[in-house]
């Protein structure tokens, strides 16, 4: 069944490639002629055209690879523009809503123009906009849009590529999770062993999250928070992994996405906080009164910095990884431009293995960052719902010390052993050195 599915998916993918390729081939001459057109325009307009080309391309370089935008980049085959939706202040003072199929359509309608990147409020001239529209590199996609003439954009509701990635991640998550959930509902996995790659993988991760993350951090309340933790874990994981596919987009390399996830953790932490938690935050017990004016603001700032750090950690890791990947591939082209084709081709030997190595690291980082986000969320929530019973804690600690005497014994045994090793200069245990416990008893014999 699964192999059939896999085969049909492969056929589907191949079909898609075949269907897209002629379209790309068709569009290639188009873009070439457009370039010629823009070149002609440039020469006819002289200095101004050059100006638009050099200073106002809005070309964001390596960052554009992970930055947000209003297009899907399938570069050898072309660019798919996403719809633009604007809530606008109209000239008459009312509020209007305008929708366009693409940025190009919005510009061609004449109602919108491109904002000047350097001076706020100013827009590019008509010829510059026409140049950007005609350019083969889709330069107009990298500018901010502005209302031409009277009125202004109130809210830009446009669908961006990161939003598309979020939807794709959510859709994938729902499909995959519901599929597994249905299996468990049928009894497959509960009454018998789980079957198939995905179910086994998911079960390993869910059990790990439950036993290693939720239970130690949240104690007996873990069941009410486990669904949130698992959802966030799989959402971040799938989001991270989507960015590693060809033409993939990493939703988690957008600070708004990670910020929203961190906001959920923040809200859950604050709303599930016990009275004890708020007392420890706003009026910490057992603290001298003159320390409180410094401690309480620090505690309150700490409430906000924790989720902020959560958001920035994920965002920074995901974005920097992608920029490093594109930079390492870009080395080939930098060397080609600087030193010629020979050295540029030679740099492939260094560049490509480095990229593959970084790709492997990013694969690991995808899992690690999802895990860290979830374990920190669980710990923050756990700190907020923890019952602070000070009297009880002390008893527990003394009990723990008494109960923990066994590990100390182990250490003592270890120390004893090393003392015996010292003066002799060789191992006392002659026969089976692999079995440490047996060796320990053997060692204690000469001492006693």
């Amino acid at each position, binding site marked *: 069944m699964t192999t059939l599915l896999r085969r049909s998916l492969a056929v589907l993918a191949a079909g898609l490639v075949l269907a897209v390729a002629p379209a790309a081939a068709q569009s290639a001459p188009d873009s070439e002629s457009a370039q010629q057109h823009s070149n002609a325009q440039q020469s006819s307009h002289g200095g101004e055209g050059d100006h638009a080309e050099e200073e106002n391309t809005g070309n964001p370089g390596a960052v554009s690879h992970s930055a947000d935008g209003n297009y899907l980049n399938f570069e050898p085959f072309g660019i798919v523009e996403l719809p633009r939706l604007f809530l606008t202040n109209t000239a008459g003072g009312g509020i209007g809503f305008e929708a366009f199929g693409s940025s190009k359509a919005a510009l061609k309608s004449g109602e919108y123009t491109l904002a000047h990147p350097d001076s706020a409020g100013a827009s590019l001239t008509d010829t510059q906009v026409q140049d950007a529209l005609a350019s083969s590199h889709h330069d107009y996609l990298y500018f901010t849009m502005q209302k031409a003439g009277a009125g202004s954009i109130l809210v830009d509701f446009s669908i961006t590529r990161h939003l598309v990635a979020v939807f794709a991640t959510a859709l994938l998550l729902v499909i995959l999770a519901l599929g597994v959930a249905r299996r468990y509902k049928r009894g497959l996995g509960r009454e018998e062993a789980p079957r198939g790659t995905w179910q086994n993988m998911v079960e390993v991760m869910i059990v790990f999250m439950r036993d*290693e993350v939720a239970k*130690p*951090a949240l104690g007996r309340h873990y069941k009410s928070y486990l669904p949130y933790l698992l959802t966030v874990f799989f959402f971040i994981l799938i989001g991270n992994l989507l960015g590693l596919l060809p033409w993939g987009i990493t939703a988690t390399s957008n600070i708004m996405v990670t910020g929203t996830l961190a906001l959920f953790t923040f809200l859950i932490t604050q709303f599930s906080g016990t009275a004890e938690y708020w007392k420890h935050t706003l009026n910490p017990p057992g603290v001298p009164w003159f320390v409180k004016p410094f401690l309480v603001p620090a505690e309150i700032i700490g409430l906000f*910095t924790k989720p902020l*750090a959560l958001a*920035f*950690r994920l965002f*920074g890791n995901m974005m920097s990884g992608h920029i490093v990947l594109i930079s390492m591939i870009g080395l080939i082209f930098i060397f080609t431009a600087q030193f010629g084709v020979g050295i540029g081709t030679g740099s492939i030997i260094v560049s490509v293995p480095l990229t593959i190595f970084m790709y492997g690291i990013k694969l690991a980082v995808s899992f690690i960052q999802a895990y*860290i986000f979830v*374990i*920190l969320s669980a*710990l923050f929530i756990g700190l907020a719902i923890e019952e602070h019973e000070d009297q009880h804690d002390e008893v527990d600690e003394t009990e723990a010390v008494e109960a923990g005497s066994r*590990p100390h014994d*182990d*250490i003592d045994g*270890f120390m004893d052993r090393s003392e015996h090793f010292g003066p002799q200069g060789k191992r006392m245990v002659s026969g089976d050195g692999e079995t440490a416990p047996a060796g320990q008893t053997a060692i204690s014999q000469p001492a006693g």
Partner: protein
Amino acid sequence: MNAAALAYLGAGIGIAGAALGAGIGIGNLAAPAMEGTARQPEAANDIRTSMIISAALIEGVAIIAEIVAILLVFTTG
């Protein structure tokens, strides 16, 4: 050297210092944690949890530096 160039330079040097500090910090943290786990594998879970909390705090400082560097680059660029 104009203001933007100075800002880029400052961001680069600043993030390098932050990365250096965070690297030393996490290294100092991870090595004893590894030793502890190797010596006492049954305490691995506790050690891992507290190690991740401390690592998050150390990383938090580096992340603040990262935000400052991003602000430097994007507000003057």
